[in-house]
């Protein structure tokens, strides 16, 4: 059972701030130091020093000192703030309330220096001066606010054009790779779609309406630079339908520059869809699974095809509760022109089904695991296609009732 003895952190140094011999060791070494960052923030706020003190205590005791957060937010919103309280408020009064504010990032995490400074100024006025750029979901995380400062911070943020992201059983802040902003491989405009969906679902982001969280992430190609397939309930991954665009001269140039095309490209193609005769590269596009490898390596010579769009996958998540899931294919291809409409329609059907059948704290992926993909497809009105499965069933335990014995 929990040890009840109270260890006092560290003797305070002359300035009245606690000494932090353990954390100070993390100022050493070449990688930028979060301890330095906290100390630097201490120039403008009293909170960072108490944060350091409490973390030092944790380092000493090998134990966290935060209490399970209660629900705090701004007026009219049901999320966007993670409440956090110290369990040693007497020792560290400045972090007795130390909430984080999730501020919705601009698509692709692009900023002007001016916008960054505006955020800094607001945060200097209202909080600890500490941030995460960014949170794992994608938000700007303003780390360390008292309850009283939430509303004022929010008001300044919205005045400056920023708004809160999601938390709780809500639509979470969507995020996307840089896409057409700076990548030649993007098969649709990830930043636009991300922004459009974020704007479209403001209500679902700010007022949790679901059985549990719902995340959408968008990558412009199968490299999936935003790890959508691992951690979003709906992953929209750019791809193409026609043939890889190929520039033979550039292939030759890569070869001349030392790329071993047989070994490093052809032999690593997952479906062996390529042949290299020392002169010419032939791609059997009907065998290509759009893995991106050859394009990645021959980056000046090959590009995704021209008939672009995305594959939509569903249900990824971390292990809690029933085990981690990778996203699985729901719609094999949506032309980029139809993406916004298709996603909107799909999301609304998924939310309806999930709202009706999802259990408390059951992610969409777990719901599908529980009821089975066929039932889920029925529920959202999608026809089964073989692209949805790695392979058809290998057990003969077929429920064939729906048809009264006739299929």
């Amino acid at each position, binding site marked *: 059972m929990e040890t009840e003895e109270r260890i006092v952190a560290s003797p305070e140094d002359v300035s009245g701030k606690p000494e932090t011999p353990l954390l100070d060791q993390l100022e050493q070494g070449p990688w930028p130091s*979060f301890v330095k960052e906290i100390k630097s923030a201490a120039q403008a706020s009293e909170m960072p020093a108490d944060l350091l003190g409490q973390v030092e205590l944790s380092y000493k005791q090998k134990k966290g000192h935060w209490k399970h957060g209660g629900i705090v937010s701004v007026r009219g919103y049901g999320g966007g703030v993670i409440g956090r309280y110290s369990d040693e408020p007497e020792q560290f009064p400045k972090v007795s309330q130390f909430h984080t504010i999730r501020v919705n990032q601009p698509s692709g995490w692009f900023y002007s*220096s001016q916008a960054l400074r505006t955020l800094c100024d607001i945060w200097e006025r209202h909080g600890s001066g500490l941030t995460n750029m960014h949170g794992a979901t994608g938000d700007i995380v303003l*780390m360390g606010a008292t309850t009283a400062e939430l509303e004022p911070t929010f008001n300044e943020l919205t005045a400056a054009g920023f708004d809160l992201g999601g938390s709780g059983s809500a639509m979470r802040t969507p995020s996307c790779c840089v896409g057409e902003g700076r990548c030649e491989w993007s098969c649709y405009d990830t930043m636009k779609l991300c922004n459009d969906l974020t704007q479209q679902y403001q209500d679902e982001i700010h007022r949790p309406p679901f059985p549990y969280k719902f995340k959408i992430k968008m990558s412009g190609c199968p490299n999936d630079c935003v790890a959508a397939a691992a951690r979003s309930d709906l992953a929209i991954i750019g791809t193409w339908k026609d043939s890889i665009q190929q520039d033979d001269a550039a292939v030759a140039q890569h070869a001349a520059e030392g790329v071993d095309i047989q070994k490093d490209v052809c032999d690593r193609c997952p479906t062996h869809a390529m042949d290299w005769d020392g002169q010419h590269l032939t791609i059997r596009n009907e065998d290509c699974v759009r893995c991106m490898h050859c394009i990645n390596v021959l980056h000046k010579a090959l590009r995704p095809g021209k008939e672009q769009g995305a594959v939509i996958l569903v249900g990824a998540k971390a292990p809690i509760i029933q085990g981690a899931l990778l996203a699985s294919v729901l719609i094999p291809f949506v032309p980029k022109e139809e993406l916004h409409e298709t996603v909107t329609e799909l999301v609304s059907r998924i939310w309806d089904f999930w709202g009706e059948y999802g259990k408390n704290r059951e992610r969409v992926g777990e719901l599908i695991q529980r009821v089975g993909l066929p039932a889920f497809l029925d529920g959202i009105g999608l026809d089964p296609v073989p692209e949805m499965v790695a392979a058809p069933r290998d057990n003969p335990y077929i429920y064939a009732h729906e048809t009264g014995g006739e299929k």
Partner: protein
Amino acid sequence: MSTAIPAKRITDIGPPHYEQFLHPVIKRNYGKWRYHEKVAPGVLCHVAESGERIYTVRAGSPRLLSIQTLRNFADLADRYCEGYLRFTSRHNVEFLLASQENVEPLKSELFALGFPVGGTNNSISNIVHTQGWVHCHSAATDASGVVKAVMDALYDRFTHEDLPGKVRVAMACCLNMCGAVHCSDIAILGVHRTPPQIKHDNLRKVCEVPTLISSCPTGAIRAATVNGNASVEVVEEQCMFCGNCYTVCPAMPLNNPETDGLSIWVGGKVSNARSEPMFTKLAVPFIPNNPPRWPEVVEAVLKIIDVYAKGARKYERVGEWIERIGWPRFFQLTGFEFTRYHIDDFKHAGLSYARSAHIRY
């Protein structure tokens, strides 16, 4: 502290539109990129159909940044980038330059400020990580400290592109795995190893008992009366310390300085390049918390990277390399012990047994 509170309450405006934050070169060539060049570690050059070029300088970041540092970044962006910069999905900062001449001066300034340039191509990029003792109630270990210790040791791997393939390292401080720890080349994961310590006095006040009971994936929680209070009990043999009960009920903390610690996982990936995405698999079931520098964790990560760097073929990710050489060889090469804990015993465990005579000797 607060000063200028706006007159009318503004809500549901969403984020600012990204367009206003795009460098003019990017704006002009949006969606019309042709190819990119690998200039140097941490430096990319994207060439548009128009022939215009945008240079990117990527710098490593501890992610936990003070406003002072952010202002420094803004100053650099003003100086070299017409005021434009971005952050990446792995929390590095990227400066966007129209002129190649600015690349070296910017790099020097970044290094001088303590922010190394690198993380591109076949290097080790930033460790995606979580809150740890800095902000989360659930953490079995710290995150920022472990990451700092590991990245200090991996510094040269960040500033050089000399690995066979990309190596993505991730860290999460509890089984909630905020991030993509479950699909990373190398993952460091905080683990609890003793069942929740039930706070029977106030459980009824702070939690809904049926929700609590149904939260447990293994059904280990049962209603019980303790000291006259309606409460719950945990069948200890059925608990595998996932912490889900604690997430739904503050009266079920798992933190225990004696038994909390870390585990090491390997071989996951997310990209579709070559192989399909893969989950990370258990390498080292437990390493005790040893702050401030977690030397055993650093050593284990370095060991994996070391044998990988020596043994993998070009472009092979860690998981692909292990699939080729086989898990027995991985354990041999790293010297990690293979234990009963490595053998899955959760829901789909039976499918993880080796179902062939394909064996390397």
